[in-house]
């Protein structure tokens, strides 16, 4: 109940010095608003880039074959390692943290033709699982299936742009196209993905054509060997474990040391997101710290104005004490006033910060700029910081006020 009185009095004291209080509050308002905007920007940037990277496959882990640097059990080092489908089967059998695995056979750019339209499209020989691993979602028709693989069928799945360029608005599923003169039946069209920050090769997924890997081997590469295997760990956190399991499995089959860094190369989404996370977190910490420092300087402004206010109100403190205010009443009075000013400023800062976040979202932003997100956790931190700054700014002035001697304060002119 005393607190209610105190807050009412604090409000009156603030109202009687509007300009002065307003100017003091500016530092805190600025600090909190920039904290919310900048940290929000860091968070939205991370989200944006994570989403961008996940386009290529949300847990995709690419492995390509290198050269063994040392030999094992009498076999010389320096050999080029080449994968076969047996390696894929071995990984399926022996690597429990691998959820999905598929070969990927690069067949290069093929001249693609439908009626009078001619294109040069990057083509990949894929397996049944590849669609899931690489986030290739079918919009129409179907993806490559087990029968296609088993029978070396001449079927293809078109990227959205390929379909658009060859067929326009016309139906494509069921139609036949020619790739380097060979007839392929279109069995499916992929969903439109748009531009990609991360790609499996030079072209974006929308510009590619997928065919069964067995068909690719039979018609284009003429070899049972291939250079890349695509994996999907059970979770992003399994990335490291999967690499270890796969190394162990293949080391045995290809006679290289399991810790041979040159034999197998990996690159995965977890790694990319990890890097972006590092950058984004660095950004967040830097921006956050910068705005917290602004906030602290704002707090020093509040402390200063509290001292001024107390020096102006020595008589008042004397009166308060003469009619029965104890030290803690006086202390509380000024702490509340300080917290009140800071909190009010913080509230305005939060409102301004959030409005600016929302306002930025209304604009058409450049491709890799995301509107700052308003994060509840950031809000919580902001309010805790404001309260802390208010208390810290008030402690010294309030202590001075509460320690004044009543007789001296009463007769202060």
């Amino acid at each position: 109940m005393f607190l209610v009185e105190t807050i009412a009095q604090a409000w009156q004291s603030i109202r009687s010095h509007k300009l002065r209080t307003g100017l003091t509050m500016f530092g805190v308002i600025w600090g909190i608003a920039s904290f919310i905007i900048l940290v929000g920007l860091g968070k939205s940037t991370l989200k944006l880039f994570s989403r961008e990277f996940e386009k290529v496959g949300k847990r995709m882990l690419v492995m390509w074959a290198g050269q063994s640097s040392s030999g094992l059990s009498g076999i010389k080092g320096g050999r080029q390692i080449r994968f076969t489908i047996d390696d894929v089967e071995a990984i399926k059998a022996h690597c429990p943290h691998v959820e999905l695995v598929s070969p990927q056979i690069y067949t290069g750019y093929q001249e693609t033709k439908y009626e009078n339209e001619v294109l040069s499209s990057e083509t990949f020989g894929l397996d049944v699982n590849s669609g899931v691993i690489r986030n290739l979602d079918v919009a129409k028709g179907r993806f490559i299936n087990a029968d296609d693989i088993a029978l070396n069928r001449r079927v293809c799945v078109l990227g959205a742009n390929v379909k658009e360029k060859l067929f326009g608005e016309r139906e494509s599923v069921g139609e036949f196209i020619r790739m380097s003169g060979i007839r392929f039946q279109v069995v499916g069209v992929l969903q439109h993905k748009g531009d990609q920050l991360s790609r499996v090769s030079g072209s974006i997924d929308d510009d590619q054509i997928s065919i069964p890997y067995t068909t690719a081997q039979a018609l284009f590469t003429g070899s049972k060997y291939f250079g890349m295997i695509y994996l999907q760990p059970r979770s992003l956190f399994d990335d490291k474990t999967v690499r270890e399991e796969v190394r162990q499995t293949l080391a045995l089959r290809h006679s290289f040391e399991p810790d041979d860094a040159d034999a197998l190369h990996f690159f995965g989404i977890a790694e990319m997101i990890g890097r972006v996370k590092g950058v984004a977190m660095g950004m967040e910490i830097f921006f956050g710290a910068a705005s917290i420092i602004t906030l602290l300087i704002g707090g020093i402004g509040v402390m200063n104005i509290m001292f001024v206010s107390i020096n102006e109100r020595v008589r008042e403190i004397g009166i308060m004490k003469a009619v029965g205010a104890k030290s803690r009443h006086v202390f509380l009075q000024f702490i509340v006033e300080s917290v009140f000013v800071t909190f009010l400023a913080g509230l305005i800062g939060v409102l301004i910060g959030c409005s600016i976040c929302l306002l930025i979202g209304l604009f058409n932003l450049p491709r890799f700029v995301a509107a700052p997100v308003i994060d509840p956790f950031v809000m919580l931190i902001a309010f805790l910081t404001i309260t802390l700054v208010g208390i810290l700014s008030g402690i010294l002035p309030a202590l001075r006020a509460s320690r004044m001697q009543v007789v001296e304060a009463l007769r202060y002119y």
Partner: protein
Amino acid sequence: MSSIDQYVVALRGVTKVYGSSDVEVHALRGISVGIHMGEFVSIVGPSGSGKTTLMDIIGCLSRPTSGEYYLGGKDVSRLNDDALAEIRNNEIGFVFQTFNLIPRLTALQNVELPLVYAGVPARERFRRAQELLESVGLAERIHHKPSALSGGEVQRVAVARALVNRPSLILADEPTGNLDSTSEAEIIALLKDLHDKGNTIIIVTHNPSVAGQAQRTISLKDGHVVSDLSKAPS
């Protein structure tokens, strides 16, 4: 002095020394005074006689350097600051020469202030403050700030504030010092009326006409009581 219990205010050998050991100022040099319940006492003396210091001690605003002070039978001469604040809150009503109202607060809020520290609920505070402001003739002005009131009105608000906690002692320090003669008469009449209602009043003044209103006059000089005269009841 037989027993301290029969006095509202009982001082025994009270001294007050200001300053450090090098530069000592002896403001009070052994004051022993007893004031009964319901008395109207004036304390007079020239500047530097120690009357303000004595008033500070009686009002529990400061502690004696030595000697004892019993207020309502309780030794308050060694209490700490917060305990003294509580005594001031419960037992003493102050009326100051410079009024000492808080300028930001309305008349009503100023009168309520002691009750805020006493923890009285808002409704009860309002009722008591309003009643007292009415009784000092300010019913129409309870929501005015001190700056919108005349000197006499401000001092009447101060009197209302002094009464709001139902003190056992009202201490007035030169209460008419800043007032014109009309307002002075009003305030004196108000204090006499309070005395008639049974309140104990101590008034510190160097104005002989104000001092003459009291039943009893204690004169100080150089920190000593030089005379303590009571009027025969008229």
